[in-house]
């Protein structure tokens, strides 16, 4: 029993589970197409990384490693920022194309070009129009 508990110490099984989560997220990322699902898959991969890190921090005797915990905290905040931005992109893409999946391949040669340096591209003029009404 003692032996089993040692073998299944948190310092070992949590990192293992973290690695599995990472692989699982990778699998989901490859398989799924809806962008929200892909973002979830990336988040799960990220959680896997944090689990490995915290599991490692909890290894051995003594209190856990505060540096590893601080890094995890940083990582979580970075992940939520990236997720928020990614979701904003998904909404934008869906608004343009009507679908929350990526366009296949590179843009074709006849897709319209919107050159922000041109005169006709002037959101501020548009803005003025809207607000005069």
């Amino acid at each position, binding site marked *: 029993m003692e032996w089993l508990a040692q073998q299944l110490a948190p310092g070992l099984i949590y*990192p293992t589970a973290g690695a599995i989560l*990472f692989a699982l997220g990778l699998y989901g*990322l490859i398989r799924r197409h809806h*962008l929200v699902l*892909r*973002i979830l898959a*990336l988040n799960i*991969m*990220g959680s*896997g*990384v944090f689990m*490995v*890190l915290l599991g*490692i921090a909890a*290894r051995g005797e003594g209190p856990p490693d505060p*540096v*590893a915990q601080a*890094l995890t905290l*940083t*990582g979580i905040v*970075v992940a939520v*920022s*990236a997720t928020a*931005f*990614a979701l904003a*992109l*998904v909404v*934008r*893409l869906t608004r*343009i*194309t009507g679908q929350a999946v*990526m*366009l296949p*391949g*590179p*843009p074709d*040669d*006849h*897709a*319209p*070009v*919107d*050159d*922000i*340096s*041109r*005169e006709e*591209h*002037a*959101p*501020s003029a548009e*803005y003025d129009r809207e607000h005069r009404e």
Partner: protein
Amino acid sequence: MNEAAPAMLPLAISGLVALSLALAILATVWPRQAHRIGGYGAVVVTASVLTLSALFLAAGPEPESAATRVALGGWEAPLGLMLHLDGLSMTLLVLTAVVGLATSLYSLGYVHDPIERRQFWPLWLWLWAGLNMLLLSGDAFNLYITLEVVSLSAVALVAFTGTAAAVSGAMRYLLVNILGSLSFLMGVVLLFGEHGVLDLVLLEARTEIGPTERMAAVLMTAGLMVKAALFPLHVWLAPAHGSAPAPVSAVLSGLVVTGSFYLILRLWMGPFAPLATPAFGILVGLLGVAALVWGSAQALRAGRLKSIVAYSTVAQFGYLLIAFPLMLVDPEAWKVVVFFAVVHALAKASVFLAAGTLQHAAGHDRVAEMGAILRARGRTVFALGLAGVSLMGLPFTGGFIAKYLLLEAGLGTILAGSLIGVLWVVAIAGGGLLAAGYVLRMVAPAFHHGPRDAGEAVSPWMDWVPLGLAVVAAAAGFAGTLTLHTLTLTPGAP
């Protein structure tokens, strides 16, 4: 000068980081003046990078003592974070400053709408600050954070035009970047689990060949290869770089991709150096040849100016992969690779800027319909051609010197008795011909007989900056000795 330089150096390094961050924050808080902050700030940052490089060269006569490490907040590693400056990062900092300055000046003309200016400049300044910090970072976890700073701001800039292609390209770019970052982070975590430190120099001292190092090397390299668009993980590059606004494409192809490559190089010269085997080198080299052929073929087929340039980035990065087996035979060859990357970045950025000017004039960038604009805009075509010559590796340009050094390294492997060296040499030499093919596709219509049409008026910045940067790319041919000397000031590197 020589006496004071070593003492001044840490202050100058911290100062550079603080300066680039302060500019970004200032532009964020005061968006109405962001373009002025960015324009003047670009000049100041460039000046301070040049000052830093002068200090660095004055301070570091011996290669072994040349790396300057600055403990942030006064906390030395392993507890704290260290900034790390050596010849390699110095070279790339200067490159970043030059391309960054050119891009900033160009953007003064390119982003004209008052509302878009407010969005563009803060993001661009964050991107630049992120690149500077990436190059100066000496800590594995901090590298992950700086990579995220770079990729988030880069993605936002890619989506800037707001077309379906641009947003979709940005989306793909973001997913790929997050995946790459996570893979990199997992590698960092594994290394931390084994050795309990994050500082790269300390890690290098502690690594030996073991399962952790192998797996970490695979994860980190794969993550960075995704970000650097190295073959076969390049599929995101053309959609993203091809549909971003021109100055952004210039920075992405010139600096961001190079930054990821810099990290790969740094890791394989540092902690992972013992893991490299000849078979691994040959595998990477073969990937490089494939990238060269595939990228060039796509560039020869693509119908849009910016797509051609984007695919040429895939092709040119093939050389960087080909350089890996050369480095295994002659470790000194790493300097050649860096020099090549520098020269490529300069040339590629100016090609993108020139393409942006032409697209602005024409309102589209379909090569087949561009003849009239090309014939009327001699100055821009000249810039395109000059930078193109550098990409082909013909004299008098930086590309020629880089190609010379690559060929020298390639022939060196043959002389060292490696038969596969013949393949590398043929690829290095033949790649220039392929480059000539796609550069001609862009330039040749200017020489056709036909009508001329200057298209929409172009601001002086957009007219002259591409030419200026192309001249710099060409003049880099005379910077070979200085660059190689700076690179020798990298301790730990062969």
